[in-house]
């Protein structure tokens, strides 16, 4: 960065301190929120929202993204698009499956069973034994 006046630097330092405090508070909130039984989906959404807010503060103020140059925004916009493509199409591919295997778009039957590590050997090798 080019030379900054002492006042400008001081102003930045005040911002950093404030953001730091907000981040600490945000951390406490997210831990407390996790203790409240909100249900799976709401719980995930709340945790994600808090993390996104905290992350945006780090990126925007500590990493100076809020005052960055256009080229950097373009690079990050491209990256964001590519990540969304990866995650989105990945989930879409799994959700949309053929045949007997259910995709995640269709709800699986829920068996309440304890999580075993060793599965019983599959009954008679089915299609699973084909050579890849």
């Amino acid at each position, binding site marked *: 960065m080019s030379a900054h006046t002492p006042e400008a630097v001081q102003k930045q330092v005040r911002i*950093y301190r404030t953001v730091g405090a907000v981040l600490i508070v945000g951390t406490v909130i997210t831990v407390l929120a*996790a203790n409240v*039984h909100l249900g*799976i989906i709401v719980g995930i959404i709340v945790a994600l929202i808090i993390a996104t807010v905290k992350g945006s503060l780090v990126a925007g103020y500590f990493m100076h993204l809020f005052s960055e140059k*256009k*080229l950097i925004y373009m690079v990050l916009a491209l990256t964001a698009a590519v990540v969304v493509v990866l995650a989105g199409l990945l989930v879409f591919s799994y959700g949309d499956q053929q045949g007997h295997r259910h995709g995640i778009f269709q709800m699986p039957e829920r068996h309440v069973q304890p999580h075993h590590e060793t599965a019983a050997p599959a009954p008679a090798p089915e299609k699973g034994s084909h050579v890849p």
Partner: protein
Amino acid sequence: MSAAIEIPYNSVERPDTGLYNAKLGIWLFLASEVMLFGALFSSYVLLRTGAETWEHGAEILSVPLGTINTLVLIASSVTMVFSYASLQAGNFARFRMFLGMTLVCAVIFMVIKGFEYKAKFEHGFLPSTSTYMALYFTMTALHALHVIGGVIVNGYLWGPGSKMWLTDPQRFTNRVEVAGLYWHFVDLVWIFLFPTLYLLPGK
């Protein structure tokens, strides 16, 4: 052959882009890191949604230790950006103090992490235990490797690299800014890792 060709725009910004080289370089590198951790987070989403059951992280991992680590990293981000601001204000001694504090925070983080891993191993929780544990170890270990990388870079800038302050202060300030960007990214990843692994409810 001379060793001293001068690459332009290491200290001052190129007028049409408004950036110095390392600033663009580090953001490009961080873009690739976003893809790296993005792929891991996507894998988490996939493996979790496809699973019948999933562990409740808080029952296996220590939320208090994770919270402390989160606060430690946040503090290290604050000290990192303070060290950069000190250089901008021309105060080398304060820069060194704050960067030193950043390094100390990083070491604390690693020590706590090591303690957590040891406790897991002792209780028989290994990557082979379940997909959730595999993700926990893989994602936190990869993150820890990035912390170590940051320690090496910051350590160099605190130590032998700081000589550049005497010969090319603007370029040195730029280097500290760039190292800071990397360090903040490491903090950013943890801000998402912590709730994902430690706090999310199971199924």
